[in-house]
């Protein structure tokens, strides 16, 4: 039953009053009590009732208030672990409500604190973690910064090297140009040589032509001699044929004689003819023999003439040979000069090519150089950025540390609260 306190007071009063009243009624009822003491007893009684009630009531009330007060005191000390338990009374009143509310407050506070605690623990952890990561990151970014430094430095070195290379290339280009120049000179000189040699060749050619004319004259004569000799040879061959025929005729005559002999008397006339033929063949042979001898003599003489002609021809040939070889020499020179010219041209072409290549390389190198510089700049930027980041990271670290600190403080603060053996214990 819930009776508000006020009610309870009222009631009390009522009771008392009532009791008085009652008593007033009662006592007289009672008969024993004397009516001089009846009012006293009534009043005493009322007082007693009133006292009793008042004691009961105020006890309860006071105890509750006392619990409440204890509770609140506890709470002010941060002990959130207990709930207020009021005395269960028959009648509940606002103190109960107050207890309830106070319990509720404690509960909620407990919860909140518990949560805060948990959360702050977590935060602590996180911040520690964060701090750790931040440290890592700091370290890393230091590293990066370091690397970037290196790169930067490297880039600088590269730039230097590029410069160096570039310089070398430029030198090369320079020397190539020199070569080009000299090969051009070479080409020129070999052209001159060619020309000179050609002139020389022409001169010898003319000389040669003249010699050839002379030679052909001589050869013409020689050929006449040869053909004469050949005719003589031919005659010889024909004479051989004739001799052969004569021999064959002889053989035929012999066979004819044999046939004639076989024919017996009928062959006699034939035998005579055969003999004549044989004689004829013999005389032919003889004449052929004479002619052969004449031919031989003629042949010998013509051979001699032929020989001397051959000698002159040979001398002329020698002279021609010499000229030929001179001409040959000139030709060789011309060839070589042309060759050299050609080669010089080639060299020029090549060197021009080289030159071009070198220029291209230079350009490329310069590109690289630029790029390297850009790189360097870039890396510088990166380096700076990294530094910033590093600083930021340090701040972060610091902040997180602070956070951790705060979290710790919070935790500490919160830990003042006693949450009892609740499950709200920090995890």
């Amino acid at each position, binding site marked *: 039953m819930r009776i508000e306190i006020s009610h309870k007071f009222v009631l009390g009063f009522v009771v008392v009053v009532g009791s008085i009243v009652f008593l007033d009624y009662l006592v007289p009822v009672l008969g024993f009590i004397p009516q001089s003491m009846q009012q006293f007893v009534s009043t005493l009684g009322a007082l007693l009732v009133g006292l009793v009630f008042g004691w009961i009531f105020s006890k309860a009330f006071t105890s509750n208030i006392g619990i409440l007060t204890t509770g609140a005191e506890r709470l002010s000390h941060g002990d959130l672990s207990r709930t207020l338990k009021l005395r269960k009374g028959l009648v509940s009143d606002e103190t109960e409500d107050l207890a309830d509310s106070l319990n509720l407050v404690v509960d909620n506070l407990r919860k909140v604190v518990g949560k805060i605690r948990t959360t702050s623990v977590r935060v602590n952890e996180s911040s520690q973690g964060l701090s750790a990561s931040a440290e890592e990151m700091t370290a890393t970014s230091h590293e990066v910064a370091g690397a970037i430094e290196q790169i930067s430095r490297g880039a600088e070195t590269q730039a230097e090297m590029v410069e160096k290379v570039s310089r070398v290339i430029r030198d090369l280009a320079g020397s190539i140009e020199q070569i080009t120049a000299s090969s051009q000179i070479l080409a020129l000189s070999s052209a001159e040589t060619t020309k000179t040699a050609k002139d020389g060749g022409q001169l010898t050619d003319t000389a040669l032509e003249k010699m050839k004319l002379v030679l052909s004259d001589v050869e013409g004569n020689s050929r006449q001699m040869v053909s004469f000799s050949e005719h003589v040879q031919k005659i010889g061959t024909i004479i051989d044929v004739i001799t052969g025929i004569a021999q064959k005729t002889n*053989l035929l005559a*012999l066979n004819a004689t*044999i*046939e004639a002999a076989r024919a017996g008397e009928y062959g006699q006339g034939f035998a005579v003819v055969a003999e004549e033929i044989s004689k004829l063949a013999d005389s032919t042979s003889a004449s052929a023999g004479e002619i052969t001898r004449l031919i031989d003599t003629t042949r010998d003489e013509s051979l001699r003439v032929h020989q001397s002609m051959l000698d002159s021809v040979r001398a002329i040939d020698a002279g021609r040979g010499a000229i030929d070889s001179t001409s040959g020499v000139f030709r060789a020179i011309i060839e070589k000069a042309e060759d050299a010219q050609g080669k010089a041209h080639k060299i020029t072409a090549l060197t021009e090519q080289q030159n071009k290549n070198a220029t291209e390389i230079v350009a490329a190198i310069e590109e690289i150089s630029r790029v390297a510089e850009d790189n360097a700049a870039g890396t510088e930027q990166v380096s700076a950025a990294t530094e910033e980041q590093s600083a930021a990271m340090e701040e972060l670290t610091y902040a997180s540390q602070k956070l951790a600190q705060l979290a710790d403080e919070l935790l500490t603060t919160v830990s003042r609260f006693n949450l009892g053996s609740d499950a709200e214990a920090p995890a």
Partner: protein
Amino acid sequence: MTQLLPFTLGAERYALKLTSIQEVVDGAQLHYLPVTPATFLGAINVHGQVVPVVDLPLLLGFDPAPVCQRFLVLSPQILSLALAVHQLESVINVDLQHLALMQSDEPQNCIAGVVHWHEKMINLLDLEQVGHIIETQLK
């Protein structure tokens, strides 16, 4: 008067009656004649006939006949052969009454008789004997 064809065999002079000879061939190609002894030089083509050639000097014990020359083709009625000799000479006319028939101890010489002619001695070749010698060689 008989006509003889003289030829030399070594240092000796022999001769044959013209009637024993069919013809003289020149430059005939010698073809291989197998199975025969060395006295057969080969065979020649005479007007489409196959005629074996015998080295006469070799047959009679002289030095072999020189290479490539004229062969004496004998009359087929006597011997179907051709003979190689050392040197052929020109036809001579001889009176055979002056022929002294030989009675030689050596039938190997194949001499049927000897004839004087212009201070020279000419042996008449005995073809039958030649045939016999060849036959003996072929056995």
